[in-house]
């Protein structure tokens, strides 16, 4: 029950990320993901970086061998899609802080845009290793979000971790009624702790090994949850309560390995 879509547009976003846009009228919500089958290659979970209307999108980061390989596929390539799966970001905040690390911003962008359209205030703290790797800063700015940047090498914005920017922003009492975050789990853990310290509810989108995406095979088990159906978005409080969060994940065989 997958469907076939052709990649209409291939947009290189940064040296290591590319966005595929494709026509797919199936409704989707910010935070949800699809299983993307590259025929002749793997099938991977990918968050929808564009959830609106009939033209959806995913943003693929070169991480391991597969994601590197499939980055190269040209426009016109037909891929299989299942989903959307998983839960969504609740579009209730009126003063939202998003904290994105690397390609994690792709997960946050569609929801941030939706809230902006709705008149909410959105501030973004976006981090990357280097200036060229900064993702979706312009996209979010043109949606009317205030964006602050951080790079590990100082080539753009704050020199250092994006969590430091987030900490500062969260220091202004009452400024935000919610925080969304996506990125490396160590980063998300820091954001979660900072948000807890300020009493702001936070939500993080996490990744785990996925096979069925249907809540059956247990590949994505995270404590008592299944990321494919109970997630990928979890309250930060839930994540902080999980011994595996930021520490371990399961490999394809089900073995616990360090994140």
């Amino acid at each position, binding site marked *: 029950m997958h469907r076939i879509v052709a990649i209409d547009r291939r947009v290189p976003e940064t040296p290591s990320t590319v966005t595929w846009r494709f026509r797919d009228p199936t409704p989707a919500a910010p935070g949800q993901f699809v299983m993307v089958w590259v025929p002749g290659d793997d*099938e991977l979970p990918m968050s929808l970086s564009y959830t609106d209307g009939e033209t959806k999108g995913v943003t693929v980061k070169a991480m391991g061998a597969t994601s590197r390989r499939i980055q190269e596929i040209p426009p016109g390539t037909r891929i299989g899609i299942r989903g959307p799966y998983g839960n969504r970001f609740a579009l209730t905040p009126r003063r939202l802080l998003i904290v994105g690390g690397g390609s994690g911003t792709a997960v946050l962008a569609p929801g941030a845009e939706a809230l902006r359209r709705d008149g909410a205030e959105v501030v973004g703290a976006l981090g990357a290793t280097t200036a060229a790797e900064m993702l979706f800063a312009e996209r979010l700015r043109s949606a009317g979000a205030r964006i602050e940047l951080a790079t590990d090498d100082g080539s753009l914005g704050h020199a250092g971790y994006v969590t430091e920017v987030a900490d500062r922003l969260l220091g202004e009492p009452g400024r935000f009624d919610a925080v969304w975050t996506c990125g490396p789990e160590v980063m998300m853990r820091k954001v979660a702790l900072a948000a807890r310290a300020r009493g702001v509810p936070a939500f993080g989108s996490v990744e785990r090994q996925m096979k069925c995406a249907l809540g059956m*095979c247990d590949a994505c088990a995270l404590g*008592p949850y299944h990321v494919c159906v109970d997630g990928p978005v979890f309250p930060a409080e839930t994540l902080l309560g999980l011994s595996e969060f930021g520490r371990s994940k399961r490999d*394809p065989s089900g073995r616990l390995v360090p994140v």
Partner: protein
Amino acid sequence: MADLAVDLAGLSLRNPLILASGIWGESGDSLSGAWDAGAGAVITKSIGSVARPGYPNPTVEPLDPGGMLNAMGLPNPGIDEYPAEIARAREHGVLLIGSVFGGTPEEFGELAGRMAATGVAALELNLSCPHAEGYGTEIGSDPEDVAAVVRAVVRQVRIPVFAKITPNAADLPALARAAEKAGAHGISAINTVRAMAIDPELERPVLAHGLGGLSGPAIKAIGVAAVWQIAEAVRIPVVGVGGIRSATDVIEYLLAGATAVEIGTAVATDGIGIFGRIAADLARALDDRGVRRVGEIVGRARRGFAVPSAEAPTPGRGAISRSP
């Protein structure tokens, strides 16, 4: 209220609804979750001697109508690592059945011994591993292979052993009888049915492995037939598996001769709450027909049933049933 408890080869189950192997079976927390959701027992995923990542994705494809196709490739962390998950579930008080798979009777025996040592209450032998990749047969399709595996296992352990039968064989009763004679304490039937999907647009198999196994409602009638045939052939209890999604489905399996049932794919389509819902519906359904204990209806569809001849018309075949 009808009593849902069943005795399954000496195991006391609070209800006859067992989590099938390969579903929610990777982590101790998930096994515990299935138990908390109301399962009468839970079966681990099938564990082998070494860690296997399984096949690459796509490993699963939902099919219309009512089918689920998968070729996971028996991913599992291996018997060295897995006991930690079992320990976690045991701490939680879960009634656990350990599933193992191997390529030879010796490997099965060794794995069974190590699995039993983790403290599981019973074993299920997954006899559906390919004999040799690329050929159509499984170790479980030959009665002698099945007997050899079961013999090797029962020598190693003192807990009940269930042989899980493949439907991809000609003579299921013969397989079950072989397992029984070799000392198995129960038969589980069925595993997934050999099947495949090809994407008509991309002109290639959907699953990375090409061939896969069909589960879900599409195979329910195949599983019921297997239980019906096997229950007639053996005296040990039969556990029915395949396509169960409702209390009515459970009743159909019980009537065919199953002492208990396993539920797999329905966890994907209906959520883990399916265990609680079916248990409640089953109790109500048994009450409605004036049944006090689940066991009363096991095999009851055989009452008054006789196979007619196709060679000449048969007159009245058995009793007429009235409403209660």
